[in-house]
């Protein structure tokens, strides 16, 4: 049995939910799906089924002219589809199933007989079942049948027929209450409620009728076919949620219902079905899954989706790369599997659709390029969005809401898979150009996989499995302990040396030292991850942008294996994506023709590279575009009042202008460049990482933006100073200068505020001992050292007793308990002697100093 047919049925069932009148776009869509369905049935020689479907299409199109109520038609279609599903999936033979009969009569005859026709299959089919009558002792079956009949006639919420239907349902409820399951009673009650209050609660009539019909057929299953209530899930419209957002609930209710329906009828993909799934998958719009399962799903999916993107981009270059195809297929398959386990039906469906499409590609029937690739990538983003949503709902404890987003991807993919749609005519549903950027902001907080750092070859499954996921805290703890070990080791060795004045037996000591050093190096490398993933993301950005802006561009990656501290990597993502966007949007010539004129190849080349140099890591983004226009920069800067018209600037200074806040030379704000993140934000982000940004540009040749970053955030260079009997560490980055003041440099204001003359400028300084309340008496200034600190645009000084030396230290937080009382302290570090040195936050120290002076 072809999957395609089953899918069409599913699709039709889904679409049926949305239709709520004749001659709506949804109705048209439904008609076309049904037509397609009948075509695919043709091939399978089930004339009865084909005719039934064709009848459905006919009545859908011509219903009003033939005086059929909309409810009737929908009911007939739903019935036909259910019968088809029975045949296709439960293996019933088409002979034993009766479709709505008498095709000629249906169109020609007036309404009442039509009712009979349509209800006929229900009863006939039912009584063909082997054990129909055993539970017929109560008269609920009669009521169910009556209700089904009545349902045909109902047309709007406020009609006499509707009232009759509610009466019948009430009677049914009465009989059910004598010994049926509470679920059944609840389901019927919900139907009643919706029939009465549907309009107030924003449900469409079609939805309500559909739910009611569904509920009734569930009941029939129980009563006639002897199914137990445990096997059945009754459909629900969510009445409670309506107040929040009418429209979205309408939408989502429809989708979730559809999913639910599909589950109840046990339709969907025959392969991927576990019976237990039915229980939960259906629920209602709000989904509360098992948090553990969801957590696992997120971890799993995130990892697989990362790989998928890389694979897909490889495929675009080389569409028939079997490894990439297999790997992408496997990844989607895994996502589908884990979504299935977590009972996330929408994700499972989308992943399944992708799997089908990739399967086609594997069979060589489809080439994943251009539009097909756009669709694939857009679908990927859609899955990612779902994963993020699951994450948020998990983090915040809010219920997950299934909406209809993503449905259009399934529809499109199915259309492609079925060969219905010409790839050229494909238009990718928009939504996702922002997804890449969005994702970065949200995903950085998610689980850290230190493990994936181990792998450099992303393609093979084997290398993947060797990575181990480790909790970040444990890793930090390990690093702490190793740091401590190093300190203890040096103490022990020193003691041993003291005890044995002779240098015998020091081999064990040196062995110990060697091992501890190695351990320490290893521990620091644990946090390092290759920049590969980030560059991969950049590849996607270039691809999307170059297509959008119609500028052929290619990303060249160098040094993807360069490793950075994970926390830096997380923060680096936004700036790099921004710089890449800038390069494509502004850096490259406006059109490929311009490039040809300038004697360059049509396709622009953007290079990202990462490398080590002098204890730092450099990340460069280079384009071969037109370079920065100096005249324009200068004139714009003058216009904006950033520089003085008479100011003479070096090339370098001109280039740095692009980092000034609010500076943009873009002639018009395009969608790409007008995103509100300026180069000043990039610079700020990089500086927050204790790095710096530098631009070099040659007109007509290109621009290089170079980011200098520290190897790790965990270590800073500090100046160790002594104040009274305490040691403090001042980050070297914030220090401008240190000096031993001479008496003639000093002056006071009102005898209190002390100043020191530095290169002709009077700089106020504060005594750290006083600021920290360490000593009362003032030491003679000339015996102390003043550390000069740059604060925004002015200088300030801190007076310390002595500078002990410069040192690299590992920053540690003081923890939350002390956050209120540790003003002026940025953190702490373990000193080489095992004691703690506090790291100063110079800016808050200066604020504290000024504040305390004001108080006096």
């Amino acid at each position, binding site marked *: 049995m072809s999957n395609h047919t089953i899918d069409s049925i599913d699709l039709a069932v889904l679409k049926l939910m949305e239709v709520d009148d004749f001659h709506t776009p949804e109705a048209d869509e439904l008609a076309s799906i049904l037509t397609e369905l009948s075509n695919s049935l043709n091939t399978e020689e089930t004339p009865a089924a084909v005719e039934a479907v064709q009848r459905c299409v006919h009545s859908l199109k011509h219903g009003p002219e033939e005086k059929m109520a909309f409810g009737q038609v929908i009911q007939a279609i739903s019935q036909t589809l259910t019968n088809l599903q029975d045949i296709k999936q439960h293996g019933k033979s088409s002979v034993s199933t009766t479709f709505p009969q008498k095709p000629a009569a249906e169109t020609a005859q007036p309404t009442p007989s039509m009712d009979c026709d349509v209800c006929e299959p229900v009863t006939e089919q039912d009584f063909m079942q082997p054990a129909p009558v055993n539970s017929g002792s109560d008269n609920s079956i009669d009521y169910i049948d009556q209700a089904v009949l009545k349902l045909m006639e109902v047309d709007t919420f406020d009609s006499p027929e509707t009232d009759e239907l509610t009466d019948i349902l009430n009677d049914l409820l009465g009989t059910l209450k004598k010994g049926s399951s509470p679920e059944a009673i609840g389901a019927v009650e919900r139907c009643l409620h919706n029939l009465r209050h549907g309009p107030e609660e924003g449900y469409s009539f079609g939805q309500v009728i559909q739910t009611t019909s569904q509920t009734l057929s569930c009941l029939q299953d129980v009563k006639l076919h002897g199914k137990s209530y445990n096997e059945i899930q009754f459909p629900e419209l969510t009445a409670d949620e309506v107040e929040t957002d009418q429209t979205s609930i309408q939408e989502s209710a429809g989708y979730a219902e559809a999913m639910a329906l599909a589950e109840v009828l046990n339709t969907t993909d025959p392969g991927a079905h576990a019976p237990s799934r039915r229980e939960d998958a259906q629920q209602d719009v709000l989904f509360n899954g098992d948090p553990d399962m969801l957590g696992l799903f997120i971890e799993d999916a995130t990892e697989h989706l990362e790989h998928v993107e890389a694979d897909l981009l490889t495929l675009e270059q080389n569409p028939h790369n079997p490894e990439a195809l297999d790997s992408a297929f496997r990844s989607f398959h895994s996502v589908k599997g884990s979504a299935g386990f977590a009972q996330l039906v929408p994700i499972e469906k989308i992943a399944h659709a992708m799997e089908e499409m990739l399967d086609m590609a594997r069979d060589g029937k489809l080439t994943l390029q251009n539009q097909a690739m756009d669709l694939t990538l857009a679908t990927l983003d859609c899955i990612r969005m779902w994963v993020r949503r699951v994450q948020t709902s998990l983090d915040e404890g809010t219920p997950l809401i299934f909406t209809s987003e993503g449905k259009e991807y399934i529809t499109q993919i199915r259309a492609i898979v079925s060969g219905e749609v010409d790839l050229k005519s494909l238009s990718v549903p928009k939504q996702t150009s922002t997804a890449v950027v969005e994702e970065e902001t949200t995903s950085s907080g998610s689980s850290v996989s230190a493990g994936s750092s181990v792998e450099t070859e992303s393609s093979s499954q084997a290398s993947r499995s060797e990575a181990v996921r480790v909790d970040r805290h444990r890793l930090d703890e390990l690093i702490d302990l190793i740091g401590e070990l190093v300190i203890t080791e040096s103490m022990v060795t020193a003691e041993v040396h003291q005890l044995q004045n002779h240098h015998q037996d020091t081999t064990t000591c040196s062995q110990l030292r060697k091992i501890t050093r190695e351990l320490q190096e290893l521990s620091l490398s644990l946090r390092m991850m290759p920049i590969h993933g980030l560059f991969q993301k950049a590849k996607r950005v270039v691809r999307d942008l170059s297509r959008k802006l119609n500028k052929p561009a290619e990303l060249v990656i160098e040094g993807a294996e360069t490793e950075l501290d994970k926390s830096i990597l997380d923060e680096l993502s936004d700036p790099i994506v921004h710089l890449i966007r800038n390069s494509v949007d502004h850096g490259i010539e406006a059109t490929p023709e311009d490039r040809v004129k300038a004697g360059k190849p049509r396709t622009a080349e953007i290079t990202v590279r990462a490398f080590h140099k002098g204890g730092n890591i450099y990340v460069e983004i280079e384009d071969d575009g037109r370079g920065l226009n100096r005249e324009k920069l200068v004139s714009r800067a003058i216009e904006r009042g950033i520089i003085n018209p008479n100011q003479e600037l070096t090339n370098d200074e001109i280039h740095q202008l692009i980092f000034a806040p609010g500076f943009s030379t873009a002639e018009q704000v395009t969608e790409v460049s007008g995103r509100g993140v300026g180069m000043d934000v990039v610079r700020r982000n990089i500086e927050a990482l204790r790095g710096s940004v530098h631009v070099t540009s040659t007109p007509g040749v290109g621009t290089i933006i170079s980011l200098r970053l520290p190897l790790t955030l965990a270590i800073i260079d500090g100046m160790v100073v002594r104040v009274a009997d305490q040691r403090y560490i001042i980050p070297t980055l914030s220090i401008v200068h240190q000096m031993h003041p001479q008496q003639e440099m000093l002056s006071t204001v009102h005898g209190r505020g002390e100043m020191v003359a530095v290169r002709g400028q009077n700089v106020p300084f504060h005594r750290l001992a006083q600021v920290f*309340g360490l000593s009362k008496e003032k030491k003679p200034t000339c015996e102390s050292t003043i550390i000069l600190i740059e604060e925004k645009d002015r200088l300030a000084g801190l007076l310390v007793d002595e500078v002990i030396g410069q040192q690299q230290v590992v920053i540690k937080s003081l923890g939350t308990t002390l*956050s209120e009382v540790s003003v002026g302290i940025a953190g*702490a570090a373990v000193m080489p002697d095992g004691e703690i040195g*506090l790291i100063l936050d110079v800016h808050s120290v200066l604020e504290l100093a000024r504040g305390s002076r004001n108080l006096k």
Partner: protein
Amino acid sequence: MTTCATPSVEDARNTKSGSQRNLAGKYLTFQLAEEQFGLQILKVREIIGVMKVTPIPNSPKSIRGVINLRGKIVPVMDLRAKLELPTAESDRKNCIIVTEVERDGESIEMGILVDSVCEVLDIPSGEIEPPPALGDDVDKTLILGMAKAGKDVKILLDVDQVVASMGTLKLTVPGSDKK
């Protein structure tokens, strides 16, 4: 962690509602000035000898500072100062009891500086009484109850409250704090 923290939270709540039934258990008792105190043993992580404590500038007197506990920065509370007992010369028997409590899903370690550690006592619930009414000048928020052990009375401290009280401390602004 989670499993042992849950009952303790209940303990704290029960105390507030006046019920004493869950307080029975093992307590680590220690000496502070003339009085004996007890801490729930489940909250005690380890006992270490006094090491050099790095003071935090401008912090309240009850915070002695921070120590390096195997690479971890752990704050140390001076319980004498916290309970407004007279300060004493340091002594070889002094030690730091490192406690660990769970707050907002995060485990927090804190050292408590005490004069000396005595023993671990199993205190049945019958021996525990609610803190007596001593008037307004005795702060009872940190006290779980009073336990009789032989002739002595031990004051059972509520570790969670002790740690929580640390987070609410305010900075002493230089100038207002006359040493």
